[in-house]
């Protein structure tokens, strides 16, 4: 972990993260509300957020990598929270029944379980190879292309490809 002390202590990092997360969530909700069956377009969201936040003095990031890693983290939390909520509410009486039919509910539950498994595998990967885990976060959650991941992290494309291949196999093997 990089030392964040010069960026006045943990508090502001927390606040920064929460801000990014809250904005992303609000934007996602709006994007979904606008079009009934709309897809949640991660890439679009993250880029929109970047454009907006870049102008704000209050939330200056050291460099793009920091921003994208927050955004990816936020997206990951968004997905995992949804998954947890869904599993927790799989119980939920009429609530679920009005929003989802049986087939969709099963798909939602399966996906939620998979997402939690992915999250757990990613946690394990973080212990083994933190950079590979970061590549996954940026690629999968922030929707960056591998090219962009390389640019963001300041690493050669070849290195990123290798990280991704290793990470993907690692995670898939654990999710079986």
């Amino acid at each position, binding site marked *: 972990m990089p030392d964040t002390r010069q960026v006045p202590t943990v508090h502001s990092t927390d606040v920064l993260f929460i801000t990014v997360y809250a904005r992303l969530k609000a934007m996602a*909700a709006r994007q979904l509300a606008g079009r009934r069956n709309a*897809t949640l377009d991660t890439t679009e969201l993250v880029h929109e957020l970047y454009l907006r936040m870049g102008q704000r003095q209050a939330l200056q990031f050291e460099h793009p990598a920091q921003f994208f890693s927050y955004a990816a983290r936020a997206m990951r939390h968004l997905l*995992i*929270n949804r998954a947890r909520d869904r599993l927790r509410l799989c119980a939920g009486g009429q609530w679920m029944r009005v929003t989802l039919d049986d087939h969709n509910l099963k798909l939602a539950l399966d996906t939620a379980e998979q997402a939690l498994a992915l999250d757990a595998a990613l946690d394990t990967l973080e212990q083994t190879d933190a950079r590979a885990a970061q590549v996954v976060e940026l690629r999968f959650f922030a*929707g960056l292309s591998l090219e962009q991941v390389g640019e963001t992290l300041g690493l050669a494309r070849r290195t990123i490809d290798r990280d991704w291949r290793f990470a993907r196999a690692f995670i*898939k093997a654990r999710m079986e």
Partner: protein
Amino acid sequence: MESTPSLRDLFEEALTLPAAARRRLLTERCPDPLRRAEVERMLAADAIDGELLSTGDAASAARVIGDTSVVEAMPAGSHIGPFELLEVLGEGGSSTVFRAFRDADGVRQEVAIKLLARGLYTADAQRQFRREREALARLRHPGIARLIEGGITDNGLAYIALELVDGLPITRYAREHNLDLRQRLVLFLMVCRAVETAHRALIVHRDLKPSNVLVTADGHVKLLDFGIAKLLDEDVTGAIRTQHRALTPAYAAPEQFAQEPVTTATDVYALGILLDELITGRRRATSDSGTPSSRINQPSIATAYGPAQVPASVASIRHKLRGDLDNIVLMATTTEPEHRYASAGALAEDIERHLDRQPVLAHPPSRWYRTSKFVARHRGGVVLTAMFMAAILTSLSIAVWQGQVARHEAQRADAIRDFVVGLLRKTAPDVPASQRPDVPTLVYTAAASLPQELRDQPELHAELLVTLGNVLRDMGDTEHSEILLRDAESSEAALPEYSPVRIETQIGLTRTLIRRDNYTEAAKRINLLLAIPARRLPADTTRAELLKIAMVVADGHADMIPAVALGREMLKAYRVDCAAGLRCHELSSAIHDLASVLLDADRIAEARGLADEVLALRLHDATPMSLANAYELQSKIALYRGDLDVAEADALKADALLDSLGNSLQRRPLEPKTQRIDVLLARENASDALALVTALIAEQHARHASRCTIAWSEMQQARAELLLQRPQDASASAAHALDDGADCHREIIRDVTVALAQLVHGRALAATGDTAGAEAAYAKAFAQNAHVHADDPLSWPLYLTESMRLASALGHTDAAARDAHLLLAALDRAEAPVTHPWRLEAQLSLASRSSGNGDVAAMGGPVFDAALGRIRTWPVGARLAQWRASMHGRP
């Protein structure tokens, strides 16, 4: 020495090679079969295209999972409890507030409903929530918005209905009414007095800020959300890994950021920030440590006091702030909680002194500079102490509220406060970290040296001992729990026979004795309790509860017939109560407990019916914890019935539900982990099982779990190692299991753990070529054969399977065949499907025996093929297919 290559090295090196060379590389470079299996799985995964999730990228997955946001699911007109929703008043990360109403006897009552979005649950969620809620409901003060009621919705979400307050945030009210400095201070005093009332009841607000401090049109202060932040505390505002707590950064005290315990001093800090903002018109930045008088300027005064006051008053206000008010704000907002005002009341008194032009207590920093330096030097000790305090205060304050004798309440609160202060003295910051006692030890030593004045009040003294004894038991320190409860018992001799505290003591002691496996004494005590006439029982003790304890005691004694009888009587009592609207929330756990006993008693069909009822009930009204219990029970029954897909899915659900609880004060139960391992092993997914069981054993050791419980895990570890063809390791693990299993004679599951450990040990020895050792183990296991079925009917098929395997390995073909027949019969009785791997294994075992007589065709049937085909993707399927192929290949 060549170092072990990393996982990544192995994987990347293997990628460059063709398949055959890969195997060679792995065999040479990677001696650890577990890791080898992992690399192999990675290579297989690498060869297959596809996204990480079958639904595609994160965004598609999020869409498929769907939004479970409360607002979307709760449109106007929907109901929460007895209330109909009108509109959303606000939505935060951890809760949503609605305006709602109900009609009670023709009167329309409007309320604010706060629906807690998630994570309010601590380990014993529902019970805890109710206690908190009751405590809050008792908090009556005109300056605090009243809690009207609370409950759990059909969806398992907790809500609280609060008095709906029509008012303005205090800062805005002061501005709009052009209040001068003195009027502001008087208004602020009202806030302090309300907070002080709550602090006296040991309730901390935790999230004081202008939007929670409203002033009504007639000038009355109303605090919102008192104590509610605590209910949200488990929540993380989405940021699970940052462990962020419900707080508002601008008003949160440093200890809240540092994840340290929250005390009344936390509210004092927030009050200081609020006071600062109220008198200067500017919210203080976190990093700002300047005095209020140094921070005001024309714009801030214009914001706070209205343009009319500017510019003449900047100097005048600055003059008024300088000195006392500066010092008061600084003292309230000191970083170290122990240097702030001790309470909101103390802060109020200082402001009153200032208004009365008397000297204030707050001093310029230099006066307490030295002490604060000392604290800074011993920060670790202070933090640790504060954590003890929070843990203990939480347990104790709950216990205080639970107490039914109202007149004792204040006295008891004082006693507890003194007790906590005593604890703090014992953890002097100078004690090195390694010598600091853990919480149970601390509680125990403090309890053992309660002050004399408390001993002179036997009832209060006993109550405190009982409370602490129960706390210790729940923390897992049953030994000291027993000592304290026995002390309580002996100090009660002078009290009337049926006094509530004596009965509480007996119940607490019986529960502790059960946890200590002393069933004989527990049985005596529970029988005495059951003999007490119902009308003599304290108001919150029911006969049903006593029957439940009696059932557990009988179950522990393996007296299954009385256990089932008591259990049925108990359930009947709960059902009668619930029909009358009493304690319905305890019904599902009563059913659950009886179902578990019925499983022990081999009444599986009846147990299954009840387990389904539990799940159905909990799907409608449950916490994640109790729902996880229900799923675990389902998984157990499914495993017994051979429905391995369901068993695995339910075990995973139970585990995931517990995950969703995050960290909490109490420990997360490990049973779902054990259950997952049992299922994984039934499917012979040995590598996952081994990883899980190794972690589980470490955790069980860390928690000082009972040796018999650990023995079961070690036995499962040995089975996993056998499957991975590590007989030496398996033999060692099984030997550990036998060693720890020596403790099992006192426990509910006793013979089966030992018998299974013997069998697995035998199999491991046989695999290493130690036939004599294996024979001896087999003989010992065989001797226990008769007990196993009575002991644990659910494990009977597993026992037969292992016995059959060991008998085959030793060449005892007749014995193996007998086990195979028994196993098939047991599986039939359990209605296990034709694809059950043990069934196929038994059939193969019988066939391979007859094939020795020349009858190879027995296994060629299409039914067997189809069955095998359905489990071919499982590790066990591959093994059985290989076995079958080898039989056909034989001349």
